[in-house]
């Protein structure tokens, strides 16, 4: 179970890298980018 949680977290972090390097993903809206990550 712990291993699955670690893998799931790692996959989400990888996906974040993918999403944040695109101009905008998918359709016509997306959630607000966390301001803390802009610093």
């Amino acid at each position, binding site marked *: 179970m712990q291993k699955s949680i670690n893998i799931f977290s790692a996959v989400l972090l990888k996906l974040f890298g993918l999403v944040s390097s695109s101009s905008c993903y998918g359709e016509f809206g*997306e*959630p607000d980018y*966390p301001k803390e990550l802009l610093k």
Partner: protein
Amino acid sequence: MIESVSSFITDYLSKNNSSLNETDLLKINYTLQVILGSLTKLAIIFFIFLYLNQLPLFFLSFVILNSTRPLAGGLHCETFMSCLIVSIIYFISVTLFSTLSPKFNIYFYIIFFIISFIIILRYAPCPNEKRPIKNKEKLKVLSLISLAFWTMLFFKLPNIQICNCIFISIFFQIIQLIIFNMKGVVFNAKIYKHFFSSIT
């Protein structure tokens, strides 16, 4: 609701994975909101097109949209609901045009794709102001490659519906780039808060 589900999963991961720091949790929460929001919209649109019996054209327009928009960028809506409505109108417009429009003169298409290349070269990518991007040159090159791929497919394929679908999808993308650069950046508000607070 999407924000709540994302926060719940993020909390669970934070309690069960001690290696995650605060920045990681923010990234995970954002990614979950993106995934859950997209899946919700996609599921609703999928069932609409399933009901309309137009799934193949929907899949094609979805593939074209997702191979151009993440690279070149585009306009955003301020709320989840308006985004959903615009997405539905977008896919229905593409499907209607693809099935109903005749094929135009070949020179019209040649001029259109040349103009598209110029606009992509000049204006892409146009990112969301609230999420600045660093790899602009790479995205511009990928946008041009994507456009080149769809242009080649357009001129190779004999099927009018597929060609119309490619043409109108690229047309909508180019129009967005033009509007974007005329009006400046249109960014999102708190889309999920707006939507879910108004329906709950």
